[in-house]
């Protein structure tokens, strides 16, 4: 079990370092997705399979899609398609794809192996998490619901395109 942890940890650290050192936002996002997937595999190793699936769905699914759409929205135009062609050289996506294949192989092997957690680690079932979440932590659940609501309202308010209003003394300026 230790070998798997070290392989996954090496992938996580390497891909995070690649995120930090890339100059291109799309390449950085690819490596960040690989890093999140490897962290999810580590969650699975530590006996939290529900958290691993949640990490993949929310982080690697929702948040990354949000950022990718945002990046696509920012640079439009004919020169960006030329750049796109230049970015999608096979050398760029080969390494993240290789890492993803390694992670998938590990996960399939672990599931087929009837996985037992690392020694000294006691698995916490999702049932206990749910009981704790809606027992003592019910106030925090309500607070996080309010936080998400505030996030929605704030994003809508900030993302609106306000019409530019100039002062009447400034309106004669050439625009």
């Amino acid at each position, binding site marked *: 079990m230790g070998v798997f942890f070290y392989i996954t*940890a090496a992938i*996580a*650290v390497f891909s*995070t*370092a690649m*995120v*930090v050192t890339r100059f291109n*936002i799309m390449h*950085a*996002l690819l490596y*960040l997705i690989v*890093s*999140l997937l490897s*962290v999810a595999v*580590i*969650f699975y190793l*530590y*006996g*939290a399979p*529900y*958290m691993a699936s*949640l*990490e993949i769905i*929310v*982080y690697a699914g*929702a*948040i990354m899609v*949000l*950022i990718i759409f*945002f*990046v696509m*929205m*920012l640079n439009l135009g004919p020169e960006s398609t030329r750049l796109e062609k230049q970015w999608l050289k096979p050398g760029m996506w080969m390494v993240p794809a290789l890492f993803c294949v390694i992670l998938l192989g590990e996960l399939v092997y672990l599931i087929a192996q009837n996985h037992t*957690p690392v020694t*000294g*680690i*006691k*698995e*916490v079932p999702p049932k*206990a*998490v749910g*009981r*704790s*979440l809606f027992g003592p*932590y019910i106030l*925090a659940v309500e607070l*996080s619901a309010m*936080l*998400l609501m*505030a*996030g*929605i309202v*704030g*994003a*809508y*308010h*900030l*993302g609106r*395109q306000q019409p530019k209003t100039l002062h009447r003394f400034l309106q004669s300026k050439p625009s």
Partner: protein
Amino acid sequence: MTLAGILFVLGLISMLIRRNMIFMLLSVEIMLNAAGLAFIVASSHWAQPDGQVMFMFILSMAAAEVSVGLALILQLYHQLKSLDSDEASRMKG
């Protein structure tokens, strides 16, 4: 635990050295992720469900933070036509 520390430090370094705002947002994501990893590992070390509960809260907070942050970056980009965070520090009013 050491892995969580390494990831957190990488995110912090990225936050400090990069001046592109999207990269700064990504490094905040890396740091939150490292904190969540530390919570999960601690939760399974002491066999308590509290760490996983905290990870769920971190997850929802990261989602809200990313949406608001991206909307802010969008507004700044429309105002300044660049993603450099040094440009925003000179903005008055």
